[in-house]
């Protein structure tokens, strides 16, 4: 049988314009709200108010004292670790801590390992404190982090 009424092969064309409009709007929205995420992490510090808890427990277990001195602009001028003068070199700090801690139980020990008390001048810039905590708490060995000291506390602020 022959079909007579063959329909016209009309090409249905989508109108792309409106879609492209919307798509560009979306694109601009995502570009503008885009922000490169910087990885952030915390140095966890357990620090109850001094003298409130079991401070009498380990009177003999004196913390390692790190004294940080600053000039008026807040720059680091000198560090002393248990009266050992370290200058401003953080690598020396790490080396000295490694020596001091090396013969003691590590952070995995039952009592949490050795403790470092940081005593800074009031106006020392905070980034130096973080740098000191970084160098005291461990070092990076490839991708592995080797822990040195986990217990860190602050001395009373100096006004």
């Amino acid at each position, binding site marked *: 049988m022959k079909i007579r009424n063959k329909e016209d092969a009309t090409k249905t064309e989508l109108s*792309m314009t409106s*879609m*492209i409009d919307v*798509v*560009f709007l*979306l*694109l601009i929205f*995502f*570009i503008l*709200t*885009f922000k490169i*995420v*910087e*990885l*952030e*992490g*915390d*140095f*966890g*510090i*357990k*620090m*109850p*108010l001094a003298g409130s808890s079991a401070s009498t427990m380990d009177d003999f277990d004196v913390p390692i004292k790190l004294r*940080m001195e600053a000039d008026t602009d*807040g720059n*680091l001028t000198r560090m002393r670790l248990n009266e050992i003068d370290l200058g401003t070199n*953080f690598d020396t700090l790490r080396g000295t801590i490694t020596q001091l801690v090396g013969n003691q139980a590590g952070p995995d020990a039952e009592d949490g390992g050795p403790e470092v008390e940081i005593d*800074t*001048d*009031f*106006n*020392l*810039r*905070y*980034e*130096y*404190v*973080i*740098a000191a*905590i*970084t160098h005291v*708490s*461990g*070092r*990076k060995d490839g991708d592995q*982090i080797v822990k040195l000291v986990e217990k860190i506390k*602050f001395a*009373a*602020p*100096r*006004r």
Partner: protein
Amino acid sequence: MRVKKENAEIAEADLTPMIDMVFQLIAFFMVLINFAQTESHDEVKLPSSQLIKPPDQPFEFPIVLHITQDATVYLGGKDYTAETLARGLKMELAVAAAQQMGPSDANVIIRAHRNTAAGEVQEVIRACQALDFVNFGLRAKEDLGQKGPG
């Protein structure tokens, strides 16, 4: 003179590759965008550290304190000083108490600007300790290899 009229053809560009590219770009930005981790504060530039790694699991009861260079402390959109911070912290504790959580369950996350005076940060920590907060986190960003302290 007779001008031969050309066929009025509409020159249509092929839009397919462009749309492909644009969709790819949209997909890229959609995947990378994250609204959830916007804890940051415009005035706070964190110090960097090599030993930083992101926490394995989110904290149960975090209190994020932003400390700017001039030692203003931001907590939940309001600004305090180290002296007046106790008021804001007490409000947080009141919220936590409704969920049977106390100050010892909280993690106080301190996001201080890298140039803030260390003493100011310590004052803030003191203010928290006075309200029996025990767990602190000093936040830093991952060091991407640039030189500098840390």
